[in-house]
């Protein structure tokens, strides 16, 4: 494959953004053009990513479609490539971004052009994260992603947007500084930042613990794990709908992906050592945030807390180092990407109409918004992890994997499944069922065409992968088993070496 397909994926949205930068927003006609450009670019990108998934060879574990360019000779190499894990995240990114663009061009009124540019640049960076094969460019994409998001919250956000954006920035910055130092240390000791080479060479066991912690501090904030999760509810509440969607659906997944690719891949010994830490924080996240979610009065906050709980399952699954656990956590990330996007969009639908996110404002919507009610039910059930939805496959595999490792951990995590049902169904009941008492709601309109289209696009894969997860599972199978084999192999080699 000579055509640089990955670079095209990364660059295309940026080129689109550049194009928009020089467009003027003054006339309605040019506004229309701006919308079409953004739509076209993201659609083509989605199409390419699906095509890439088709081309992708599921049976081999090596990185594919690798491109390498010397940049700063000896220090920074531009190197990209994908394996079975990254391809799914790339498709998720292009898919969600496309839906976001459709949503934005129908709802955002102020500074539409800038907003689209921010989303397109964000898309480039996110795709970059999922196919970087070099630590330095990974870092650049990873941290670069913060900036557009920071702007989206800070400019198009709600009343307390500055506080939220600042909190978001402060938290993530702290972690990323440590990660940067760790990357420099790796370069100084191993003389390379090429991931494939680092996998082969292995990292000196003496440094692993500190390096692991440095990476962890960055990933833990972004996941987010307890107790560094408090930025997420605030960021979500203040972010515009699409900001929340991108944040929940993709930005959080970059950290989960980071754990898999770097923490586990590069530092097996430290990963094994810190597994109890990850388990404890994940379990606390699952139980604690579920209980907190139960008491929320703001819909977005509730879903934000539920995201923390769901990501708790993700981190739990990865560190079981079992085929089921790791595959489960990848499926859970994809599923959460679809479902949380849909849930935030659903809240946005109501917010656009009534301008309130408070649960008590609503009630009895089923009689005025039947289509909305059906779709929201599907997503609620997927969030609850009901069999027949993608949420079930992820959660169940994670718990199954965890059970192989520790009965206690799996049992406690399973309690979270009960709590998850409690807060989601209670939310649904208070918003959708009951008598319609608020007069404002009497004339509320059901989903319009574009909303219906977007939510249906999210509902179909959620259900499809619930009944037939084979396309996902077969894509990641070889990469995951390779990851686990490598982990076990390194563990034995290095511990023998030490012993």
């Amino acid at each position: 494959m000579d055509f640089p397909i990955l670079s095209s994926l990364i660059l295309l949205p940026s080129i689109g953004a550049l194009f928009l930068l020089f467009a003027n927003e003054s006339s309605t006609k040019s506004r229309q053009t701006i919308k079409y450009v953004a739509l076209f670019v993201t659609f083509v990108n989605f199409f390419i990513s699906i095509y890439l998934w088709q081309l992708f060879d599921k049976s081999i574990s090596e990185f594919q479609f690798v491109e390498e360019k010397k940049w700063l000779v000896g220090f920074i190499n531009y190197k990209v490539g994908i394996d079975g894990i990254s391809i799914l995240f790339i498709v998720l990114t292009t898919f969600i971004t496309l839906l976001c663009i459709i949503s934005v061009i129908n709802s955002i009124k102020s500074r539409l052009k800038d907003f689209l540019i921010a989303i397109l640049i964000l898309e480039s960076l996110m795709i970059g994260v999922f196919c970087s094969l070099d630590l330095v460019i990974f870092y650049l994409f990873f941290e670069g992603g913060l900036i557009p998001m920071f702007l989206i919250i800070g400019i198009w956000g709600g009343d307390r947007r500055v506080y939220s954006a600042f909190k978001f920035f402060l938290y993530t910055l702290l972690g990323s500084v440590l990660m940067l130092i760790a990357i420099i240390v790796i370069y100084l000791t191993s003389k390379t930042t090429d991931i494939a080479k680092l996998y082969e060479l292995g990292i000196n066991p003496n440094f692993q613990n500190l390096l692991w912690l440095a990476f962890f501090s960055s990933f833990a904030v972004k996941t987010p794990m307890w107790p560094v999760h408090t930025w997420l509810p605030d960021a979500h509440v203040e972010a515009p709908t699409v900001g929340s969607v991108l944040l929940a659906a993709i930005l959080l997944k970059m950290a989960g992906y980071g754990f898999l690719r770097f923490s586990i891949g590069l530092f097996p010994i430290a990963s094994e050592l810190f597994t109890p830490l990850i388990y404890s924080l994940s379990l606390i996240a699952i139980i604690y945030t579920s209980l907190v979610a139960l008491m929320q009065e703001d819909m977005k906050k509730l879903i934000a807390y539920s995201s923390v709980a769901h990501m708790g399952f993700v981190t739990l699954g990865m560190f079981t180092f079992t085929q089921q656990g790791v595959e489960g956590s990848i499926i859970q990330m994809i599923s959460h990407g679809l479902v949380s996007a849909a849930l935030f969009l659903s809240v946005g639908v109501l917010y656009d109409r009534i301008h309130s996110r408070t649960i008590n404002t609503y009630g009895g919507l089923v009689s005025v918004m039947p289509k909305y009610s059906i779709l929201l039910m599907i997503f609620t059930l997927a969030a609850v992890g009901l069999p027949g939805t993608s949420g079930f496959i992820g959660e169940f595999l994670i718990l199954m994997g965890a059970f192989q490792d520790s009965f206690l951990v799996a049992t406690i995590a399973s309690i979270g499944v009960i709590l998850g049902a409690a807060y989601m169904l209670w939310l649904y009941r208070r918003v959708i069922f009951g008598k319609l008492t608020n007069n404002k709601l009497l004339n509320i309109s059901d989903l319009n065409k574009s909303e219906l289209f977007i939510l249906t696009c999210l509902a179909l894969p959620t259900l499809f992968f619930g009944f037939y997860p084979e396309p996902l599972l077969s894509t990641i199978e070889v990469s995951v088993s390779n990851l686990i084999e490598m982990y076990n192999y390194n563990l034995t080699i290095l511990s023998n070496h030490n012993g």
Partner: protein
Amino acid sequence: MEISLLFLPLLASIISGFFGKYIGDRSSEIITTLFVITSAFLSILIFYNVIISGYENNIIIASWINSGTLNVNWSIKIDPLSSVMLVVVTVISALVHIYSIGYMSHDPHKPRFMAYLSLFTFAMLTLVTADNFLQLFFGWEGVGLCSYFLIGFWFKKDTANAAAIKAFLINRVGDFGFALGIFLIFYLFGTVNYSEVFNLIPEIIDKKIIFLGFNFNSVDLICLLLFIGAMGKSAQIFLHTWLPDAMEGPTPVSALIHAATMVTAGVFLVVRCSPIFEYSVLALNVVTIIGMSTAFFAATVALVQTDIKKIIAYSTCSQLGYMFFAAGVGAYNVAMFHLFTHAFFKALLFLGSGSVIHAFDEEQNINKMGSVWKKLPYTWVMMIIGTLALTGFPFLSGFYSKDAIIEFAYLKGNTTGILAAYIGIFTAFLTSIYSWRLIFKTFHGQYNNEEIKKEKIHESPIVMLLPLIILSIGSVSVGFLFKDLFISHSDNFNFWNNSIKFLNPLNDEHPPFFIIIITPILVILSIPISYYLFIKNKILTHLITDSNKFLYNFFVNKWYFDELYEFIFVKPAKKIGLFFWKSVDVQIIDRFGPDGISEIIKFFSLKAKKFQSGYIYQYAFIMLLGFSAILTFLILN
């Protein structure tokens, strides 16, 4: 054949659910009903083939989950056990579909209702035809979901919504145990397919396992975990509180889901897993004890309830208890037999009570009824048939199955078995009293309803009576017709084949004569007793309740389970949630985390402001200071 049997209800549900608006109410009703009736005929055909020729089949439809060594398929497994369930599910479902056409005739959401009923039927079919634990779990949660939808069908009623969520959550507690059971099975055997798991069981019977600090025999642990799931679904004591509340749903739903089919899934699970339970003496004892406790507990509560549907709901709870202790003493076939007969007479009672409620314009309180047997002659006759069958009146269906349970429990010979037999006899007496209380208060005595004139009370339309007639024929005859097939003692013919495992053959002696005769005698005696207490001499009834005020209140308040759970689980969960949010997140993490840091930064930037005086020489001086500090540092090194 199997495929269309399974997917016709799903197809009906999709048509009615998504296109009901376009094809109209009547077409939705006809399509769903016809499809499910077809399913029912196919089931009977399969059941016939199984009886006649021992037909068995295991169809793989598609692969579902493949992850590492975990390989799970979508499948249809036909064996004697699943064929019995197929008949129960589809036949009752078909009758309930027909009945619903009449019962829901004034409801504006008919297509949605029919779609849920058909969807439920599909989920229940996937449950019973699974060949692995994961598909079983799929169906298990699927029927729970449909039950949630149908309990909350009248979404404007807050009580209905609360009941729906309660049902879902308590079932989730049960499913929590069930899921852990599946994890443990996978952990021990590396597979979740029935046939492989059942074959491997004998190899691990001595294996010990430490679970949450306790040392378990692994087979015991599997059984106990699975049984927690069964307790949730079948509303056994401690996890029963959702079932009475579930009566908020429309009555056809109560008949189909909360009497005949879904709630029996727990019994089905235990029977399906007989190859595992047979190796666990501990688990079987637990099953027996829980079963008999539920049977007794629910009967005491049913004695004093005034809501016609809640009485029948507690009665269901109690009868499910019978099925469990039958399974617990190893008489799985008898448990299945009672499940089979119970489906007919309990569906009959529910649909009959629906007819009464329909006549009284949604009134459910039996104290506001009475004296209407002439007005509702068909309903009255069929309710009496149902009651006779339930109480175990000689030669009706309940007589064969319930007495068999008591006999086998007695013959088991161990302490729990004999205890269960005695409790079973006493509970049968209570059952009879509360059932006749219901009949007498509803149909006889004085007319007590002030809102509706007695003249207005009318019999239900034929579309509702037809299913009642068919069910009453079943209630009279299925016990007699199928007793040899289900619980025959002979060795040369075994209907169940390998679908039920008996480690030791069931005891085929005859129990002492008084055990056989005492239940029917009590059952017959209870009719005049109830008549005397609830019609003739109500003062005596009042005297009894007044002199035992404590016990009466205890029963009326359902042994205070709801209050206890509210106090132990619900309130603390909310309090802890609030504490974590307001105190930990906001007061601790944020205060010392980001807000604290930003305070510090603000503090220093204020200090720093003082340095920004604007005079270049001051900057130069500070730069010099810094520069010399670095130099000093370098030199010293």
